[in-house]
């Protein structure tokens, strides 16, 4: 014990360039976060999305009017008349409806993605780790799911279950998992052969512990990217469904069903305040999320690391 070999700082560790930069040491996720914010588009996307989320969260405080209160219809936008974005055919304030609609769109996006990432991760991880017939079964199931005409199946599901917000989230969530399952499966297939997994077995860790606490964190990065794009897709799908009349039912506002109410020719040509704002909101939401996804992908690509 007396000749204990204690190493000094400098000689054996490649990190710790200077004690002045302790953040440098934390590596991993913190480093990712820093690189993410340095990526300009990603930062902008995150800020935009955060604003949208705040708007949805505090809708009752921000909205100037009750979104269901009926007044004089088709008032054009004005700074002085109180209705910043005018009113619709029932005389409801467009701005307030727009703000409340963000709740629907964001919860569809986040809810559906949360459901299908959870399902896909579980299926993919189990299929990849155990292989054999479990794997074949899971992969054939993804083949079947992926060969469905997406929008049609959702339309059928929603019309059978009834068109409500919860059912739309459920339908989107139940249909989206195959792509996540495949991503996770591929990752698990390669990571499970790594020596640290063998080391984990040699340390006496149980299979679920190894699979979910040791292997999964190594394969989540591409899924995170996939999930951000998934949110955008879900928002658009909800808008499409609402546009087709199978989405969120009036009088609840969603960006999609605000568009459907503006379908008439006279509205399209003469009252742009009814369809331009919801379209813009959809575009902003989708773009901000896509930017975030792009940024995440760049940041997580090991070749892109500087």
């Amino acid at each position, binding site marked *: *014990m007396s000749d*204990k*070999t*204690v*190493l*000094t*700082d400098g000689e*054996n*560790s*490649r*990190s*710790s360039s200077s004690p002045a930069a302790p953040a440098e*040491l*934390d*590596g*991993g996720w913190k480093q990712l976060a820093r690189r993410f914010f340095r990526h300009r588009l990603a930062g902008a996307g995150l800020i935009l999305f955060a604003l949208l989320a705040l708007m949805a969260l505090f809708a009752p405080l921000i909205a100037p009017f009750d979104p269901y209160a009926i007044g004089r219809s088709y008032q054009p936008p004005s700074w002085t008349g109180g209705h910043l974005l005018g009113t619709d055919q029932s005389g409801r304030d467009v701005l307030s409806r727009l703000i409340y609609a963000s709740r629907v769109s964001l919860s569809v996006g986040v809810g559906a993605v949360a459901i299908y990432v959870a399902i896909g991760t579980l299926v993919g991880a189990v299929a990849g780790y155990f292989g054999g017939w479990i794997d074949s079964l899971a992969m054939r199931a993804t083949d079947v799911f992926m060969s469905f005409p997406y929008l049609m199946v959702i339309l059928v599901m929603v019309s059978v279950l009834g068109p409500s917000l919860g059912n739309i989230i459920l339908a989107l969530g139940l249909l989206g998992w195959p792509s996540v399952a495949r991503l996770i499966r591929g990752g698990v297939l390669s990571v499970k052969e*790594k*020596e*640290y997994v*063998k*080391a*984990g*077995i*040699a*340390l*006496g*860790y*149980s*299979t679920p512990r190894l699979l979910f*606490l*040791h292997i999964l*964190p*190594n394969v989540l990065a591409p899924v995170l990217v996939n999930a951000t794009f998934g949110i955008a897709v879900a928002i658009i799908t909800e808008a499409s469904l609402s546009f087709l009349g199978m989405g969120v039912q009036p009088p609840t506002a969603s960006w999609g069903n605000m568009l459907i109410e503006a379908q008439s020719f006279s509205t399209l040509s003469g009252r742009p305040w009814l369809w331009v704002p919801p379209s813009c909101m959809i575009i902003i939401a989708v773009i901000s999320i896509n930017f975030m996804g792009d940024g995440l992908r760049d940041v997580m690509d090991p070749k892109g690391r500087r």
Partner: protein
Amino acid sequence: MEAVLEVRQVQVTFKTEKGEIAPVENVDFQLGKGETIAIVGESGSGKSVTTLSIMGLLGKAGRVSRGYISLHGRELTGLSAKELNRIRGNDISMIFQEPMSALNPVLTIGHQLSEQIRKHRGLGRKEARAEGEAMLRRVGIARAESIMREYPFALSGGMLQRVMIAMAMSCNPKVLIADEPTTALDVTIQAQILRLMKELKKEFGTSILLITHDMNVVAEMADRVIVMYGGEVVEEADVFQLFDHHRHPYTKGLLECIPQIGSGKGERLAAIPGSVPLPQHMPRGCRFQDRCAHVMDKCREQHPPLKDAGKGHKVRCWLTCEGKEGEENGGTP
């Protein structure tokens, strides 16, 4: 000496598309308390498969098809995964060849170290962390506190091997299996790691099973040496006995392959011609016959048994049996 780990007549078979093969056969030894046994041999000699079979890491295709492995008299070969998980990492630990790939890149050192301590010793989060930190200090890492927060990519190979040793020793195992623990490290770091392992062995009374093909490491660490060739033990002896009075031509060949500074300038380094035959193409008779300089007709026909040449020195070669052939004939499979 009290036997901690017993490996008796073990044969390991793997299922392949072309039927079963047996990369390990006739492996038989026991590891005493506080003893270090080195298993040496070329690639393909079966030394790694032997250790994997002890740890139960053979995978789906492999199994111990004959013989048994026991720890303190408790047989390991038939245990369920759950029982095995209680032993692995607790009673038997393992250090791997490449420390860089043996630690999970997305978890911090502290996380990995304390997870294991918590699992096997049932400590709380805080105690396990403190214990882990103490263990890091014990293996000679000065900045233990900040290293606990590091991810593996930030550490050098030597540091990571220290971390691996800390993990392996943290539950005070009875047996430590070290699979070429220094092969991937710099020579200077190698010496430090070997010294550390020796110290810990003395302190904890751990028995070490050392897998290596580096004869210098053997000379530095081992009490006894097992030489493996073609999946079987060909010679087993005390370390001094082996270096000075080896009997098997293969052991001789291995020892001649050690490069030595200053001896015979301009001389070419000796090498054993050829390579280990594949398990499915094992020749009849002695497995070393095609590469042996002293091959006789008998070697081509009959498989030599592992014979005791006195004082625990065992050899599997017809040359050494020659004289006593009259009294001890047979034993061939």
